[in-house]
């Protein structure tokens, strides 16, 4: 019986010829990741269990991104715990303030993760790296601790749903509209425990930033991982960037999928997920009566260069609507630097927006844009759960950078239309 792309990567890392859905395996890990919230818990478990060294200092990545620069004394303590652990174990991929970025924007950019890898991260959006043709999944802190100690993790081999992509996206849409549309279609548990394998002739029309965004939100459909095949776009992205040699796996011709869902990219429309679940999607054009208070453009979902470019094109020479707070957060220091160098940073400020250094901050209601009671925010982030960005009676609308930037100019949810 043929294997899916995910199953082939898992079989390889488990040292097995073949695996089937449902099989429990133990697989070798290429990268074990943690952040400033999940790592302190992992460090505690690691020490409590009596482990004294990490399996490979080059295969552990610790990124301070959720609450840094430290938002308060307690957050500072958590960062300190991470810093001391990374230092004492000589962790080579440790990213502190000045070097850090939002982990899932940072690791692909820095070439830390690559095609064919088997990766776990104590952050649910670790599924992002499937865009590079890797198996990558989110776990908890105890799994991170076990991964750091042994270089191994146990998995139940997942079945897969195949998404057959055709056509090309309209110019006012991006990967975000694709993944929101899919979650709207299959629901927040539509891919529970499963792989989402994206394939078809439409893949070549999606940029790497689009693919990273699509895989990033696979978890919002309950998936174990999302994955794209490796093509010229992937290899060009990895070239000169990847620390390790990419390994290309392809799904067998006779791979078994639970079902196949056809997505015509040319039929995608600007899409918004309304409170309080990512599956509660509607076309942006139907929500134009919703008045907003705040706009957030950034996060591990949409803080990449193309997202900043789309934002620049819409905001440049215009003014943010009266009474709207617009917060722009480039995902990494490199992206921030590009924004400065290309004059986008100045354009953002001239439009009336603020620009932050990289942080997860507002996405999870940490800081840098918390909502008050009754306030509404359109955000390019990934979750709109109750209280996610602040007060329990505030609301988050998830959208693409195009839609969020266009909404910043009007003060209402607005579908972007090319002039």
């Amino acid at each position, binding site marked *: 019986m043929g294997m899916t792309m995910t199953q082939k990567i898992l079989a390889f890392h488990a040292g097995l010829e073949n695996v089937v859905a449902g099989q*429990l395996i133990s697989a070798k890990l290429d990268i074990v990741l943690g952040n400033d*919230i*999940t790592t*302190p*818990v992992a460090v*505690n*478990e*690691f020490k*409590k*269990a*009596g*482990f004294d060294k990490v399996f490979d200092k080059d295969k552990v990545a610790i990124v301070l991104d*959720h*609450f840094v620069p430290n*938002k*308060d004394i*307690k*957050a500072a*303590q*958590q960062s300190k715990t991470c810093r001391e652990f990374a230092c004492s174990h000589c962790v080579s991929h440790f990213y502190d303030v000045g070097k850090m970025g939002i982990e899932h924007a940072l690791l692909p950019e820095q070439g830390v993760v690559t095609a064919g890898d088997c990766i776990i*991260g*104590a*952050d*649910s959006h*670790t599924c992002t790296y499937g865009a590079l043709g890797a198996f990558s999944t*989110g*776990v*908890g*802190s*105890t*799994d991170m*601790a*076990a991964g750091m*100690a*042994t270089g191994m993790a*146990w998995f139940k081999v997942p079945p897969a749903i195949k998404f057959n992509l055709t056509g090309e996206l309209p110019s006012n849409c991006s990967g975000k509209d694709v993944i929101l549309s899919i979650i709207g279609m299959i629901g*927040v*548990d539509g891919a*529970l*425990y499963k792989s989402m394998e994206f394939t078809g002739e439409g893949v070549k029309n999606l940029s790497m930033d689009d693919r990273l965004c699509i895989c990033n939100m696979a*978890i919002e459909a*309950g998936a*174990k991982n999302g994955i794209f095949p490796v093509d010229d776009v992937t290899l060009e992205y990895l070239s000169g960037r990847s620390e390790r040699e990419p390994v290309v796996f392809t799904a067998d011709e006779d791979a078994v999928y639970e079902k196949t869902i056809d997505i015509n990219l040319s039929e995608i429309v600007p899409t918004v997920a309304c409170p309080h*679940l990512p599956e509660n999607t509607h076309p942006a054009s139907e929500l134009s009566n919703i008045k907003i208070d705040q706009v957030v453009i950034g996060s591990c979902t949409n803080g990449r260069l193309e997202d900043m470019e789309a934002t620049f094109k819409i905001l440049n020479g215009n003014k943010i609507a009266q009474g709207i707070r617009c917060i722009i957060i480039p995902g990494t220091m490199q992206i921030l630097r590009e924004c400065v160098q290309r004059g986008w940073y100045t354009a953002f400020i001239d439009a009336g927006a603020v620009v932050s250094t990289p942080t997860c901050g507002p996405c*999870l*209601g*940490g800081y840098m844009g*918390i909502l008050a009671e009754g306030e509404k925010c359109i955000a390019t982030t990934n*979750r709109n*759960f*109750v*209280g*996610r960005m*602040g007060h*329990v009676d505030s609301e988050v609308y998830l959208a693409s950078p195009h839609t969020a930037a266009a909404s910043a100019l009007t003060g209402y949810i607005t579908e972007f239309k090319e002039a």
Partner: protein
Amino acid sequence: MNTQGKVFKYPDNVDTDVIIPARYLNTPDAKELSLHCMEDIDTEFVKNVKTGDVMVAGWNFGCGSSREHAPLVIKTCGTGCVIAKSFARIFYRNAINIGLPILECEEAAEEINQNDEVKVDFDTGVITNLSTGKTYKAQPFPPFIQNIIKSGGLLKSLKEGENNG
């Protein structure tokens, strides 16, 4: 192993942001965090929960973030077990890894009501609703996972493996 207690009933898609809001995650201290367990959808839970009580929920319990703090605060509050129609996968893994008993049982999750008194036997997977007298059989864990639970969590089972190997 078993637990017996009063039921706290919750809907589908209870996410980790309501189990423990991220605004409190500037500390890893489970005791401190547990004071805020479920507060965004149920302010009474922390005040009323007693050791051994049982959470019963719908589909996709624990969806969202990978934060292990979520099963940890549920356990630290004294909750003896979570029964749901299904669990989000990272929550499921985390619960096993930290030793919070969880059971998937659609029928029980559908029929058991708020404030019912239930008894759960983890070895057999039998759930008894003492308020109605009805019993249910949950899916047992595969042996591999049972071993992790018996060892007292993932890291202890790894250490055991190291010592035996």
